[in-house]
């Protein structure tokens, strides 16, 4: 009897979040699920990958027909999550076999199947899922080999291409810029205005290790609330100017109809800071910061358009790298002995009727 390598899954492309969250495996339950699937008749090995963007089950079985394994896994999901027939019917699973499975896993690990092309978090998530399965004893020769190959391919794709280069969101561009101006661990941040976008930028900076944060807003209560959330300090709106020389990054997003930060103020600040570099991020529309501020020695001003343009450039650059990445994956599939299979998209199948 021949061994079949299969994958059954759904992701952000095929299934809306309200459905995905219903059939997501909690981290603490992944090992249990893997053991249950492996206990299905004919199944030898399994790995369960469940993230916010995808739920995928990789398995090897020795059933006579390769596709029979998909049917059994779907039945398992329906039973485990107590789904009605109509709900199961509406689920859009992709059902992959052998080389398609390997190709898909290689793409997932390399970040090519991610919502944000080239993102790196998925590599760690797949590693963690594999480790859980390995520790539970649900993997064997076939899946161990496949996952080790996938990690090698993922590393190669990241090392030999620029798929992960640059940032594709305004928040992460702000972090990249801050990192190239200062050592983030020593970086003090000031938020002027407490809009959603400035909050996202500040949170990105803090999550990457920024030292401290000061929040100032016209509504002081809102500033206090946001400062408490980010373990920072709140300042009254008429006090931020006096504290500017203490910070290395200013993020401004007030709703003022005129410039709030002017060159004269920044010149004074820079004298006090002994010309230490200052990053000013203006995400307000209309703009808060006079563009002439960028002419001042040691000051680097980025408005929302500049940040968006950088993010767009990075996205385009990643898309250009895609062909190179796919080339590496195909080369590795051949090297590892996977025969050419159908393209991934053509294998997306709907519900049990495709079994």
């Amino acid at each position, binding site marked *: 009897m021949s061994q079949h390598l299969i994958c059954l899954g759904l992701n952000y492309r095929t299934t809306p979040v309200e459905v995905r969250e219903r059939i997501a495996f909690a981290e603490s339950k992944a090992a249990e699920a893997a053991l249950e699937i492996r206990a299905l008749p004919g199944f030898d090995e399994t790995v369960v990958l469940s993230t916010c963007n995808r739920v995928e089950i990789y398995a090897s079985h020795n059933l006579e027909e390769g596709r029979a394994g998909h049917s059994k896994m779907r039945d398992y999901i329906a039973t485990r999550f107590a789904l009605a027939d109509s709900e199961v019917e509406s689920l859009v699973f992709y059902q992959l076999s052998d080389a398609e499975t390997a190709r898909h896993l290689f793409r997932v690990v390399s970040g090519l199947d991610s919502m944000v092309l080239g993102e790196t978090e998925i590599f760690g998530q797949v590693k963690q899922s594999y480790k859980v399965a390995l520790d539970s004893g649900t993997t064997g020769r076939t899946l161990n080999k496949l996952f080790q190959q996938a990690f090698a391919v993922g590393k190669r794709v990241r*090392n*030999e*291409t*620029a798929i992960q*280069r*640059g940032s594709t969101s305004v928040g992460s*561009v702000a972090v*990249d*810029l801050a*990192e*190239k*101006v*200062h*050592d983030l661990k020593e970086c003090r941040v000031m938020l002027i205005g407490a809009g959603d976008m400035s909050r996202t930028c500040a949170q990105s900076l803090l999550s990457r290790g920024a030292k401290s944060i000061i929040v100032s807003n016209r509504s002081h209560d809102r500033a206090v609330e946001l400062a408490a959330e980010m373990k920072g300090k709140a300042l009254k709106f008429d006090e931020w100017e006096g504290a500017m020389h203490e910070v290395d990054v200013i993020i401004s997003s007030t709703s003022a109809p005129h410039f709030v930060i002017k060159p004269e103020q920044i010149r004074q600040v820079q004298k006090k800071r*002994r*010309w*230490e*570099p200052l990053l000013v991020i203006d995400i307000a529309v209309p703009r808060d910061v006079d563009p002439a501020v*960028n002419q001042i*020695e*040691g000051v*680097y001003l*980025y408005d929302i358009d*500049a940040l968006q*343009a*950088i993010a767009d*450039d990075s996205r385009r*650059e990643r898309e250009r*790298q895609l062909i190179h990445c796919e080339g590496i994956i195909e080369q590795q599939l051949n090297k590892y002995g996977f025969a050419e299979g159908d393209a991934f998209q053509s294998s997306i199948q709907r519900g049990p009727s495709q079994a």
Partner: protein
Amino acid sequence: MEQYRTLLILATLAYLGGLFHAGTALTKRTWHDSRWHALPMLIGFCLTTAFLYLRGQAVGQCPMKSVSDILVFISWSVILLYFLVGGAYRVSLLGLFTAPLVAGMQILAVFLPGAFPDYPLKGKIIPLVELHAAVALIAYAAFALSCITGIMYLLQERLLKKHRIGGLFYQLPPIQDLAKSVRRLSLLGLILLSAALAMSFALKQPVSNPKVIFAWAVWLLYAVMGFVMWRHVLSPRQTAWLAVIGFVVPFVSLWLVTKA
């Protein structure tokens, strides 16, 4: 061709190889920080060390008397400092900027008319004289590295100001680290040159006047630069320019000193 010349040419090729590799990787946007990037620099350094050893054997003393020998000694010192500083300040791309300078100095050394002449035989070797010269040349290497770091600062500064956020931007270190490196390397050079000049006071053998004057002129220049940096009189950008332009003086003085 003497064996030591072959070694020097091979060392130069290693530096150029490193430069080519880095340039290609940056152009293809596949550069990643890795210790392997330092390998061509390490090979070049070993070959230059072997050159200095053989050349020292050939002339019977530290090879620091002709312009070509001085250029090679400085390039060796620059790479030595690169290995010491590159890791400490996480400025691995410094190698990309160091390689062309070092390769250029070595090519110049090889092709200078009358390169690597025989030295007139001299009597007893005086260790303090040799040490004085070696320390002074290592100080010049620190100034060279400060100049290279200054170029990196100016480049990163321009990319940040003009919003040109691309391949090279991501590989260059934070601008604040570069500014610190410029200051520290200039200071290191100044301390070493001060030590070399202090040694000259203890020498019984008189040092020629032009040599002393040039050395003191260079010391004075960097002392003023050090003071300006310490007092934050100038912005980091102006300081970086000073480090770049300032290096021209010690570099040109090498010719004058060796002719004196």
